[in-house]
C-alpha cells in the first residue's frame, strides 16, 4: 500500500470515527449499556503428577456492562457470570468435579482497530477480580481463595450499531493453598495462571 493510499485510508477512518454512531465511536463521549451471552471454552486448570488432571468443559457466560464511548476509546465496567462443568481424570478413571460457577467484576477498555461503515473491529482489554459462587468440592477450587485476579484481551467485530461478536482470552490466577495446611505430609499446592477463552454475542442499548 502506498503512503498516499495509507493517508487516504487514514482520513477515511478518521471520518468514519467522527461520524460513526456505533458502540465505540462517538465524537462526544456517551454512556451506553450492553449485554453479552456467550460460551466459555474448556481448558486444563491443573495438571500435576500424583494428582488428577482438572479440566473444565464448555460452559456459558452472561454479562452486563456499561461503557463511556468516545471516538478514540471506551472505558467501562462489567459484571459477568460464568459456569463450566469440571472433570477430573487420573489413572484411567475420569469423573465429574461438579460445576465451576464464578462471577467477574472487571474494568474494561476498547479501542477501534478498523472501521467499515457503522461496523468495525475493536481491540478490548479488561482487568478485575473473579470470585467463585457456590461450592466446588474438588481441588484446586475448593481450597483456593475465593477471589482471584484476572486479565483479558479480546477482539470484537461490530455489526452495525446494535451488536458485536467478540472473542477474548482471559487469564485467571488460582492459588490453591487452603486445605493443605491442616493435612500432615502436606499436599504441595502451587499457584498459577489459567487461560480461559470466551466467544459470544454482545448487544448494545
Amino acid at each position: 500500500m502506498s503512503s498516499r493510499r495509507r493517508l487516504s485510508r487514514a482520513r477515511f477512518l478518521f471520518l468514519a470515527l467522527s461520524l460513526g454512531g456505533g458502540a465505540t465511536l462517538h465524537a462526544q463521549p456517551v454512556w451506553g449499556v450492553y449485554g453479552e451471552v456467550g460460551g466459555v471454552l474448556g481448558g486444563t486448570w491443573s495438571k500435576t503428577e500424583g494428582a488428577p488432571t482438572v479440566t473444565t468443559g464448555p460452559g456459558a457466560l452472561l454479562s452486563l456492562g456499561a461503557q463511556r464511548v468516545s471516538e478514540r476509546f471506551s472505558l467501562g465496567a462489567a459484571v459477568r457470570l460464568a459456569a463450566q462443568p469440571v472433570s477430573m481424570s487420573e489413572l484411567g478413571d475420569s469423573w465429574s468435579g461438579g460445576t465451576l460457577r464464578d462471577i467477574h467484576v472487571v474494568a474494561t477498555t476498547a479501542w477501534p482497530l478498523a472501521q467499515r461503515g457503522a461496523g468495525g473491529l475493536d481491540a478490548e482489554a479488561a482487568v478485575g477480580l473473579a470470585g467463585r459462587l457456590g461450592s466446588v468440592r474438588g481441588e484446586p477450587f475448593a481450597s483456593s481463595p475465593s477471589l482471584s485476579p484476572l486479565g483479558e484481551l479480546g477482539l470484537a467485530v461490530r455489526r452495525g450499531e446494535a451488536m458485536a461478536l467478540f472473542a477474548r482470552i482471559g487469564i485467571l490466577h488460582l492459588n490453591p493453598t487452603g486445605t493443605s495446611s491442616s493435612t500432615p505430609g502436606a499436599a504441595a499446592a502451587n499457584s498459577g495462571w489459567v487461560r480461559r477463552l470466551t466467544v459470544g454475542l454482545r448487544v448494545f442499548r
Partner: protein
Amino acid sequence: MLLVSAMMASACESPSVMRPDAAYDPTTLTQGTLYRWANGRTLLVFVAADPGSPYDLGLAVRQAHVRWNAVPQFTEFELRTTTDLTQADIVVYDRAVTAPISPGSCTFDPRSSAGYTYFCAETGSARAERLPLGLGGTSRATVVIRLDRGRVTSQSALNAVVAHEFGHALGIGAHSTVATDLMFGLPTVDAPSARDAATLRFVLGKTPQLSL
C-alpha cells in the same frame, strides 16, 4: 498492555495440587494389598437396622457419610444412602437382624466385635466379589459392614465404630497407632483426623491391587 502481556506469558504455569503422603501404612491388615473403589463413584449404602435397638444405626451411618464425604480432595467418591438393597455398593447391618447379604466365598468372622468390614477378592481377579443377597439373587454389593450393638454402650460409641468401619470400606486397610485417629483400633472419635484424611487421600491416588 505490558502487564497483560506479562500475565499471558506466565499463563503456562498452571496451578498444581499434590496429594499428601499417608500418615500411616494403609495396608497392614491386608498384607500389603492396597484396595479402593474406582474414583468418581457415588457409593450407595443400604442399612439394615434392628428396630429394637436403643441406638440409631441409620443416624450413625448418615453421620459417617458426612464425615467421610468431606475427605476427598478431588471429589473421588460420595457416600449416599439407598433404600434399594439390590443397588447398594455397601451393606451395613446390625448383627441382631437377618443378614441381608450372604458371605459368598468369604467366611464371616463368627466372633463378636463391635464392627467388622468384609470384602473378598474374586478368584483369579483383581476385583472384589459381588456378594449374593441373603434371600437369593444377585447384588452389586462388594462390601459388608456388620455391627454388633451389644458391644457398644452409647450412640456416640456406635457413631465412632460405624465411622471407623467406613474408613475400612473406603480403602484404609489398617489401624492407626494414634489414639486420637478415627482409625485407631478402639476409636473414641467419630470423625476422621487429619492423619486419617491424609491416608485416605494418599490411597485414592494409588493404583489399587484390588478394586472394590
